[in-house]
């Protein structure tokens, strides 16, 4: 079966069993969101899709996802009994959560994940693939992040990253049309991937149309790539342009009413700054020279969706976030510009992911997958990449845990993540050799070990503190574990990013001065 060894087959079976047994588990409102999209697309005409407001969970993904929802609704009509199908696909203001609906929706997620599985397996094949690529591929397909986000919380991230994997297959096998086409398709499924688009743009331009050292554009290639990009865009947006609904689409896709930070702080730079702000506020009774903003006091502590204002530090505006993200990305993409290889491309994707995750406006903690997936693909490059992968994976996966706030899923998310991490770590660790045992290197490794070993303590605290705090005070301290988690994870992710930047810098230096030794 697809060249799976017995051990791989065992793992696959085990993962599928776990995912099916998770069918009755907790699901977020995203479940109803996606179900409602199935209902909208299967019951209404295309022209009504982006206008329907029967449910509050309106369609706000690009058109390909709407088409995808339409496709997912088809089997229900074809296979199931009429009553059941109508029940699953009913347009309703209130959530539909019957067991048949749950079963059906969960199945669509499970089956759509095959796109990712086949994508990463293909990525691990062919020339230029090392023996570890297959392990990496399978580790991505079975990533705990996807288990948490898709199989429990409910989304289709694995499927979307599957499209990304196919785009990477195009890059790896020098098929620019596949690379560009798959990525454009992905953009038309979910526009959050636009954060990674600069990497694709630079790579496709420099690797195929305007390679380093040449003075002219390769026009035929540029045309091919351009067409393969435009065709998905046209297929997705065409009908809505024809209907004159582009502005409505825009309003749905880009709602600029949200705050700097999400309810639960994504572990990025802003989380750390918000913590500093909180600490300054505590100190402000003593440090009278600080100016306190009244809106800020109420805002940060509760962590409500909406505008987040700092109490002491200056507020951040969306424009500033975008400029910061953009500048960082442009700076980090110079490496790709100089050396447009596949590996550099992967690193640049991770860099773009990091930049947008760290500085973006209203970043969701789920966006950490934009970083973790490309980092996984680089994990066996050298020691530096491996440690960047390890720390980012631990911090990133842990930062997803608060999404599942019920105690019932805690053993599952912990157990699965630990088994996954242990298995992948043990297998990938062999691929890299530690650096020379210098004072600096040892100190860094030592600090990293301390950082990682704090996670069990953090988990213990998060589980036990709510039980030990008196009942009437629990409400007040509810935000504390989340804040600590978020800030601690953000430290790890920032350090991982620093390691990646170091890798980029080293690579650029090496390409300029051959023979320069890698450090770290």
């Amino acid at each position: 079966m697809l060249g799976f060894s017995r051990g791989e087959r065992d793992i696959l079976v085990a993962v599928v069993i776990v995912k099916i047994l998770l069918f009755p588990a907790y699901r977020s409102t995203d479940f109803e969101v996606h179900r409602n999209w199935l209902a909208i697309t299967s019951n209404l005409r295309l022209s009504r899709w982006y206008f329907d407001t029967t449910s509050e969970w309106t369609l706000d993904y690009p058109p390909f996802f709407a088409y995808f929802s339409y496709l997912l609704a088809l089997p229900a009509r074809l296979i199931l009994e009429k009553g059941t199908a109508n029940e699953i696909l009913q347009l309703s203001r209130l959530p539909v959560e019957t067991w048949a609906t749950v079963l059906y929706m969960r199945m669509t997620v499970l089956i759509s994940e095959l796109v990712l599985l086949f994508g990463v397996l293909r990525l691990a094949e062919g020339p230029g693939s090392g023996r570890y690529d297959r392990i990496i591929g399978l580790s991505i397909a079975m990533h705990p992040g996807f288990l948490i986000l898709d199989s429990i919380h409910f989304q289709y991230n694995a499927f979307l990253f599957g499209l990304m994997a196919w785009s990477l297959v195009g890059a790896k096998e020098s098929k620019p049309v596949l690379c560009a086409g798959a990525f454009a398709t992905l953009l038309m499924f979910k526009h959050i991937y636009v954060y990674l688009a600069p990497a694709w743009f630079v790579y496709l331009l420099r690797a195929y149309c305007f390679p380093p050292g040449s003075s002219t554009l390769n026009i035929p290639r540029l045309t091919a790539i351009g067409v393969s990009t435009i065709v998905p865009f046209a297929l997705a947006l065409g009908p809505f342009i024809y209907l004159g609904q582009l502005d409505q689409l825009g309003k749905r896709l880009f709602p600029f009413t949200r705050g700097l930070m999400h309810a639960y702080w994504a572990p990025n730079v802003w989380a750390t700054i918000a913590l500093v702000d909180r600490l300054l506020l505590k100190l402000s009774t003593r440090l009278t020279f600080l100016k306190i903003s009244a809106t800020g006091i109420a805002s940060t502590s509760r962590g409500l969706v909406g505008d987040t204002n700092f109490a002491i530090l200056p507020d951040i505006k969306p424009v500033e976030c975008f400029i910061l993200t953009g500048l960082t990305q442009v700076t980090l993409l110079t490496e790709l510009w100089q050396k447009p290889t596949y590996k550099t491309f992967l690193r640049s994707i991770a860099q773009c992911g990091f930049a947008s995750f760290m500085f973006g406006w209203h970043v969701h903690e789920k966006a950490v997958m934009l970083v973790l997936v490309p980092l996984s693909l680089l994990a066996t490059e050298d020691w530096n990449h491996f440690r960047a992968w390890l720390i980012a994976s631990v911090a990133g996966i842990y930062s997803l845990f608060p999404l599942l706030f019920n105690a019932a899923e805690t053993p599952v998310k912990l157990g699965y993540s630990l088994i996954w991490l242990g298995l992948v770590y043990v297998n990938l660790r062999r691929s890299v050799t530690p650096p020379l045992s210098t004072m600096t290197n040892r100190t860094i490794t030592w600090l990293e070990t301390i950082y990682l070993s704090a996670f069990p303590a953090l988990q213990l605290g998060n589980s036990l503190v709510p039980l030990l705090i008196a009942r009437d005070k629990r409400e007040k301290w509810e935000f504390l574990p989340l804040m600590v988690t978020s800030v601690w994870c953000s430290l790890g992710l920032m350090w991982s990013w620093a390691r990646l930047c170091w890798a980029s810098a080293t690579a650029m230096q090496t390409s300029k001065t051959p023979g320069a030794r890698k450090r770290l």
Partner: protein
Amino acid sequence: MQGQGTSASPTLSRSSPGGARDLYSHSSSPPILAPIPQRNPYPSFSLNPSSPNPTSNSNLHLQPPNPATTTTSASLSSSSIAKPRRSQHRRIDEAIDTPLRRLVRYLSVDLGAPSWAIVVLSLGMVGLVKWLVGLGGYSGQGASPRFGDFEAQRFWMDLTINEPFSRWYTVGGVDDGDWWRLDYPPLTAYISWVFGKIGHYLLPQHFAGKTSRGAESAALKTYMRWTVLALESISWWPVVVVWCWSGWGVGTRSKRTRIVTVLSILLQPSLILIDNGHFQYNSFPLGMTLLSVYLFQQGNDLLGAVAFSASLLFKQMGLYWSPAVFGYLLGKCIWVGGDEGLTLFIKIGATTATTFLLAFAPFLRPFPQTLLILLERIFPLQRGIFEDKVANFWCASNVVLKWKNWFAAGSMAKLATLATLVGIAPTLGILLWTSYRLRCRPSSTAPTPPQSPSMLPPTAPLLPLALFTSSMAFFLFSFQVHEKSVLVPLLSVLMLLGEKGEGDGIIWDGIVGLLNVATFSMYPLLKRDDQTLQYIVWTLGWNYLVGYNPVKVVDLKMRWFGYAVYAFIVSHHLMEAFVPPSSRYPDIYPVTNVLLSFSIFSLAWLVASWKLLEMAVSMVGLGDLGSERPVSSSANVAKKDK
């Protein structure tokens, strides 16, 4: 060897060369049917210095040679030394290489993990699986007004922490809406008290007396699921580990085999679906009974009696095992004989009586009344012969013979008791007869050591089978049997479950098949509890993990019999899913389930009884030779070695 890559290379340094050479160099030796060569093929192959002719070694495998692999090996055998070994690898792999074994091998060989770490990790995975099953529905979820077993257990926790001892068994009844009164023996009540106290600290609103009745919340469900895991992690998991390590279980030869056996037993779906799905604490009595068997086989009869009493004091269904335990202990007293035997008898009796007295102590006053109410609750003779459909003699024969119309509940109880006595008589008889025939004979001329209470009686190896025949007789013939009670006889089946390829492959296939039918027999219950998904997924999953494949059952007759049974089960499920029962036979699906399960159970009971008799007769025959008594002396030697 080369095919295994890195995974095989560590084994090179760990294997024993002598044994390997012996086994594989004598190609002219007669067919080796014993399973020893299959135990751990990797070291043997990687160290084998000569080039074995693969075709002549085909007798080493359980499976008939696969034509595909035979041709490969034949074509490769002349080309090099290493390649034939590889083909042998594959053929032996096919016979015994199961997913669980691969997992344990990976952990111990590839990662070099020590046994204790693998056991801890395995138990963690067992807990994870149980927790995942627990995400599904439970008994009486949302089923107002009476709810189900989940509410019963919660109510008992609530009752024991909020009422004094004296009222534990008197609360409830008509004036109280007959709300899930406590009808389990006192140990259940005590354990409920502990969990009630903790529950009250964590979720006071759910353990607050009358207002909490029928409480349902995600937090409560999580807490209750935790209590089941907590209790079984101290009373069932460690006992299984100890049992598999003790040398009495089937899988005893290598550490890896033992771990595989532990995993196979703990992951078996029947108990998981009932305890962690439906919601009960059956793992405790199972664990205590297994512990008592282990202690008996260690020669520690008094502690064993305490452990078995704990099982009885937790749930009255422990009685199903009691004829075997009684027969074994009394038999041992007879076997020891003389004053020593009598002393042992008194000691065991006193220990058991003390245990019971301690457990019942709080309910002795006012003297007879409380105790009588308690006993009446524990043994509800006024109820019917069966409630739901259960795969025993009464319910299965009810299709034709309308017992309930012919007899009143009281006389029905007597009839059932009589039938049960007849059913358990052979077990009891065999145990006592064997002990009597092999007892110490003072007139013996040879200088044999006299039996002493610290020795193992010859009936010790009979105990697992005797437990099965006795409890299955109870299940098939006794009064007021629940479909869940099949877990009682299943314990012995689990005790005999080894690893695939371990012991006699035919027995292993039969045992797994029986376990599958037992799981099937509980399906109507699981369906009511919204555990259908878990039932399907985990039954298939477990069969995959232990490497059971109905198509590859060793014995041809059993294979075809299995086809018939599985075809019945699959078509039963499919029919039920797509064809609604007619109004004339609304219970057609539960009844067909009962008929199949009953046939298989009674067949298993007959086969097991026959095996028991066979073993006993072979022993007595040997014992009659006079003073040698090979069975008892070999058992004693084994014990001294420890």
